């Protein structure tokens, strides 16, 4: 070995250790110029999901209301608090309820963790629905974002399933009767209904097997599916060109470059040639110094907004968790359902519908509703009115959507306030 490159002495190595470890973790210093701002997003695994630059429209709080981000942050809070709760929970019909009491009585931070988990779950259902409304009312499901809309609907269903499987675990009265009713509704599905009911319950009556099954769904199966779907949802946002924006939000490129913008695969691509990544990028090939665009660097603009939304979300969840305790009903009494036996608010619309017809309320109408939601971007193919709240071009679609939404809200209100013992109609005043 030659001595030309003198290796630094051990002392120097120790002295420079902190700096070197830092530099091996983060390849760039805090950015001071545009090149470094790009590298910051580009070279960090966690930031790499973001584009180097984002459109200014994306950062308008009044456009997105930050709802997608809030859903994601709530999910993160749910994962963290959920994992912590798993340290004390036992999915056993004889122990589950006692463990809930332990959380309340003898586990440090037990109450607040359970509260955070419960209120984040309620919040996530609400925020995911609001996010769906935002995307619909701004026409953002339209080409090329059709599939991401479909993924979004799947994420809504997964959120509801997560919530449902979750509130069964304390094995209180709500849990037992909700499993009884929920699996019975599944039993009304045509052809496979009875088999699904049997698989969910792991037997012919609701008991230990059912609790264990819902536990496994809640802590392993559904979170895995949900995480994967969220990852694809985010990845598609970038592949679909970022969040939607109105057509006039971008300056028109000069004529000689306009050709390839509309065509996802420019005709100049030749199937027999070898291409690098940049050869496949859509749109005008280069913008540098040519077009004044409406983008800003993700660092710091996007990251600071995200940090702000995260801190706000966490703060609200913490305050709610400190002020209000998560409900825990009486321990399971197989012989007496509470009267009236009510689901959490977001399922009360469903319960109200089910009280008219088990099949139509539990399978038929929700099935049609979800089917219509999934098909929305394939039925409404007019490219007009994207990126604008309540665009006049989308009056019909928005009206239909809001009608469905309002119907469900009315059912929820009826179920919450106007139903008394034996599900009889009562007036709350």
């Amino acid at each position, binding site marked *: 070995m030659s001595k030309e490159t003198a290796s630094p002495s051990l002392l120097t190595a120790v002295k420079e250790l902190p700096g070197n470890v830092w530099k091996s973790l983060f390849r760039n210093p805090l950015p001071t110029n545009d090149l470094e701002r790009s590298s910051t997003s580009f070279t960090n695994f966690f930031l790499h999901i973001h584009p180097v630059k984002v459109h200014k429209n994306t950062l308008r709080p009044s456009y997105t209301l930050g709802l997608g981000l809030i859903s994601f942050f709530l999910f993160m809070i749910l994962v963290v608090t959920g994992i912590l709760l798993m340290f004390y929970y036992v999915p056993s019909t004889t122990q589950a309820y006692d463990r809930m009491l332990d959380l309340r009585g003898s586990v440090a931070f037990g109450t607040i963790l359970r509260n955070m988990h419960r209120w984040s779950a309620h919040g996530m259902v609400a925020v995911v629905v609001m996010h769906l409304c935002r995307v619909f009312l701004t026409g953002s499901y339209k080409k090329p974002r059709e599939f991401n809309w479909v993924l979004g609907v799947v994420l809504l269903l997964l959120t509801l399933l997560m919530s449902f499987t979750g509130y069964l675990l304390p094995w209180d009265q709500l849990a037992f009767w909700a499993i009884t009713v929920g699996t019975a509704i599944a039993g009304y599905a045509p052809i496979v209904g009875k088999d699904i009911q049997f698989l969910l319950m792991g037997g012919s009556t609701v008991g230990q097997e059912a609790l264990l099954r819902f536990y496994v769904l809640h802590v392993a199966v559904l979170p895995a599916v949900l995480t994967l779907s969220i990852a694809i949802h985010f990845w598609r946002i970038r592949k679909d060109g970022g969040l939607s924006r109105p057509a006039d939000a971008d300056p028109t490129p000069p004529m000689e470059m306009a050709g390839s913008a509309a065509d996802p695969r420019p005709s100049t691509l030749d199937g027999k040639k070898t291409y690098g990544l940049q050869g496949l990028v859509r749109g005008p090939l280069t913008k540098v110094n040519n077009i004044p665009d409406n983008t800003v660097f993700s660092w710091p603009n996007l990251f600071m907004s995200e940090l702000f939304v995260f801190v706000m979300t966490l703060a609200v969840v913490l305050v709610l968790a400190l002020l209000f305790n998560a409900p825990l009903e009486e321990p399971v009494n197989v012989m007496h*359902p509470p009267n009236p036996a009510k689901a959490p608010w977001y399922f009360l619309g469903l319960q109200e519908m089910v*009280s008219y017809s088990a099949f139509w309320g539990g399978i038929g109408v929700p099935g049609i509703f979800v089917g219509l939601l999934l098909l929305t971007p394939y039925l409404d193919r007019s490219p007009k009115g994207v990126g604008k709240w309540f665009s006049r071009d989308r009056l019909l679609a928005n009206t239909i959507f809001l009608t469905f939404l309002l119907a469900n809200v009315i059912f929820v209100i009826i179920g919450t306030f106007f139903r008394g013992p034996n599900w009889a109609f009562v007036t709350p005043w």
Partner: protein
Amino acid sequence: MAVSRRRMLAWITGTGLVGSGVLSAISNFVFIKPRATYGQPQRFSIGKPDDYPAGTRIALDARRICVVREGNRIAAVSTTCTHLGCIVGLADTGFACPCHGSRFDSDGTVTGGPAPRPLPWYKITLAPNGEIEVDKDTEITPGSYLTL
């Protein structure tokens, strides 16, 4: 047209891989479907006829039945709602479900709410030791009592 050896091998490989994938997916469902379940016994004794005086309706909640006695006739009516499986409570007019508002008269006939079928009546026999035996596996025509 003759299929080349390479194409045929590719086809067999592809079919094998997809087939194994489908089979393993199905086997998951076979795995999670229990072969044996451990439920409550469906035939059980509910005591002597003297425990149920004439004219009473006594709900045995643990068994999910209601014992009805009129004079010297006795019957067992299910208290599991035929709508979504909640347990119905005794009401002045018969039975009422607290979950979705199904209503039944004292014979179990639907009088309101979403229940699709009347409450089933179970076969009831007098065992040699003088106790009443209920068989929840056998449904009988509503209205058919056992005369003591």
